[in-house]
């Protein structure tokens, strides 16, 4: 008998059908990967299972018994737990308090902290977590926070654990530890759902895979009976070229040179002694765990933040001043959060395409916008960059994430800047759009331009970059040709640990 059986689940949001008669089964003691692109409906169906959303049609059976969840409390009662993508911990409370919140042990009217701490400590020990249960949640690392989230779910006695993109924020080593935990939980007879769009993870950890696409169930397969190629085909609906692209030969002259970049905030160093040279025809990747100075590095290199010291030269010319001067000197910027810094949501596609370039002769003259020219540019770029939109006068907010990102890519690359600071260019968007954006970047590099790529997606850093610098606590702690980095070395460096190669060479076969 299946632990969970979901039959014919349909969920509509207005005229959009997010899930269309999707079936999903989960067995006791399995790790089940739920695979699909962004917007395929993976998180939606799990939100239904966790009671956060109510399905329009379909039924859910737990251990063969039909159930109806009005909210997540109902789901928790059926021993279903979810670790969401964004941690929901209260930073000022201790680990213990966070774990037991909602079902605290009491003595009389009062919260019994000692007992709670004892329980949480035991739970952590049983699961092989080394964790100070009295530490404030706000002081923990990302990996530790995730363990607290897992404890929260286990404390409520969950037998079914749903993980939404759990590896997105972890270093490779932390991912390995997480997967160890998964295996241990499975061997105890618990069932795990892993929501992901990363194929490597699926092949590494899953027992069974269910693939969704556009709210439809494409199929469920045993991992041992499938391959990455087949999974991609199920996920995307067509063949996709994966893997190696040619690297730059790094023969160009230095295009962009960053010297002695330091920045402190409140007396604390945020960026220290950063020196990077990026050549013509090179993509330089910054690897690192988020929060090690990436955001500040991006802001300094685009003139948004004044560093304590820096000499930035582009083709030998020094670049100084405010953001507008950096743009005019030929530095393009793809911001790391497209909705926060990239787009004005209620403006049209065309208006967003000229943002930052509205001063140009093409787009305005003596203070007045040249509407016809803007329209023409919008229409042309929508076409050139494959932006799916009815026309360029549509508000950018009604586009999908991938197409919104393409608007930014179109804006920046069509202006042909000498140097592009490109942050998280494909975060949270579908494979087809990512592929397209990567192509644009490669083409641009091959024209002899320089790109600095900052991404939390290590696979992206590894496939796109010609050279990689690892940023740790605001320093470049390692820099080498991309081909000389393997996961082990990257992971150690990102975590600030010295890297000692186990053996030379022989590290192929990774995805």
């Amino acid at each position: 008998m299946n632990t969970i059986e979901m039959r014919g689940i349909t969920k509509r949001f207005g005229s959009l059908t997010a899930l269309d008669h999707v079936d999903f089964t989960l067995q006791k003691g399995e790790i089940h990967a739920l695979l699909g692109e962004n917007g395929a409906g993976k998180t939606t169906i799990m939100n239904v299972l966790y009671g956060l959303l109510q399905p329009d049609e379909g039924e859910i059976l737990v251990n063969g018994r039909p159930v109806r969840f009005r909210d997540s409390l109902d789901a928790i009662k059926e021993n279903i737990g979810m670790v969401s993508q964004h941690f929901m911990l209260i930073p000022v409370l201790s680990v213990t308090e966070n774990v037991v919140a909602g079902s605290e042990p009491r003595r009389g009217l009062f919260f019994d902290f000692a007992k709670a701490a004892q329980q949480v400590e035991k739970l952590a020990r049983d699961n092989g977590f080394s964790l100070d249960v009295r530490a404030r949640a706000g002081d923990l690392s990302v990996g530790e926070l995730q363990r607290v989230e897992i404890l929260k779910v286990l404390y409520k006695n969950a037998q079914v654990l749903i993980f939404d993109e759990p590896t997105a924020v972890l270093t490779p080593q932390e991912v390995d530890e997480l997967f160890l935990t998964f295996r241990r939980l499975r061997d105890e007879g618990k069932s795990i759902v892993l929501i992901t769009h990363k194929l490597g993870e699926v092949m590494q950890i899953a027992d069974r895979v269910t693939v969704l696409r556009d709210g439809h169930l494409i199929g469920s397969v045993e991992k041992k009976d499938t391959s990455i190629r087949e999974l991609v085909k199920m996920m995307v609906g067509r063949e996709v070229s994966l893997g190696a692209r040619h690297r730059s030969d790094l023969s160009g002259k230095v295009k962009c040179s960053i010297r002695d970049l330091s920045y402190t905030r409140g007396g604390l160093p945020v960026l220290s002694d950063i020196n990077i040279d990026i050549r013509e025809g090179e993509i330089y990747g910054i690897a690192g765990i988020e929060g090690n100075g990436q955001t500040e590095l991006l802001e300094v290199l685009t003139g948004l933040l004044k560093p304590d010291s820096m000499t930035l030269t582009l083709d030998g010319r020094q670049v100084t001043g405010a953001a507008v001067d950096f743009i005019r000197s030929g530095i393009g910027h793809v911001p790391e959060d497209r909705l926060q810094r990239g787009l004005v949501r209620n403006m049209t596609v065309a208006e967003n395409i000229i943002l930052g370039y509205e001063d140009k002769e093409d787009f305005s003259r003596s203070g007045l916008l040249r509407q016809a020219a803007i329209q023409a540019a919008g229409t042309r770029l929508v076409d050139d960059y494959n932006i799916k939109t009815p026309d360029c006068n549509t508000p950018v907010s009604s586009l999908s994430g991938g197409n919104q990102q393409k608007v930014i890519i179109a804006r920046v690359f069509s202006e042909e800047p000498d140097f592009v600071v490109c942050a998280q260019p494909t975060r949270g968007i579908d494979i087809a759009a990512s592929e397209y954006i990567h192509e644009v970047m490669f083409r641009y590099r091959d024209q002899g331009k320089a790109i600095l790529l900052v991404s939390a997606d290590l696979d992206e850093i590894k496939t796109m970059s010609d050279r990689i610098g690892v940023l740790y606590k605001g320093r470049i702690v390692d820099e080498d040709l991309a081909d000389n980095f393997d996961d082990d070395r990257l992971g150690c460096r990102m975590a600030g640990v010295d890297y000692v190669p186990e053996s030379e060479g022989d590290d192929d076969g990774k995805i």
Partner: protein
Amino acid sequence: MGKFKLDTTKLYHFLRIVAALLLALIFGGVILYIAGFNPLQAYKLIFKGAFGGGKAFLTTLIYATPLLFTGLSFIVARHANILNLGIEGQLYAGAMTSALLGAYVTVLPKVIHLPLVLAAGALAGGLYAALAAFLKVKYGANEVITTIMMNYMATLFCSYLVAYPLKNDQGLTQTERIAETAQLGRLVKDHSLSQAILFALVLIVVVNFVFKNSRFGYRARACGGNRLAAETAGINSGRITIQTMFLSGAISGLCGGLLVCGTYFRFITNFSSGFGFEGVAVATLAAFNPIALILSGILWGGIKSGASVVNRIASVPMDVISLIQALVVILVAAPRLMDKLLAPLKKFLVKGGRSV
């Protein structure tokens, strides 16, 4: 450009406002009924008082004129996502400045004097608003709080001026009458409607054009839509904020000047019956669209004008009318409430069913 396609989403937004108006009238009717009046009779009188005949309509325009300015002032600031709640204060700054220059500068010919007086009023209002913007940009002072407080500063300071230093011979709290050369003419013979309304209409068209088609307007809208994105794109959002507020305040200040030059011919304490906040209401009713503001301003003016008629004839208290006005604003400002009531219509007209 040959675009004849009917935008059903926009149609829905329009119908939603109409429905809010009707609903407010129904609620208001119930209140009138409870208060012992015949609602239909009262509404009929209001309508006749507002729009029944040329003279009534001209009177409505008198009521509408200041609202067109103050509404526009609010809309301008809102384009850059600034809440200018200091319109009243800017209005007073402009009115007082114009009243002083109009009364005490007496050597200039009309072609210079009147424009000078009006420009000075606009400048005063603009600078007063820009000060609030400066405090916001430089020191992070929330403009909602500063502008409201600056209303008190302006109105009370003006009251002080007319009560003490400028007190006139008859002991009235008003300034001296402005010179002939600073007076604005009437629009038509035999009616006290001044030419100020022409300024309002021209200004509305100009502002609409500026925000749609100028680089400054584009940047202001970008800052209003997403300040961080605008800054990332190299736009100096602080400067845009101050410029936009100056423009907004200048419109209010000009309004004050025009009321002095065209209607009262002097500064009178409490000359504004809350035009500033009524401007917010009228702008909301117009969904912050400058062109729609012409309609909502005239409608609002009509309600006020009709209300004074129904108050005179049927002694319906003005308070009840104010209550209906308040209901209109609340219902218009609560689009999701109206969405619920109009769900089938929305489904039919708005594609995608997303919240709009």
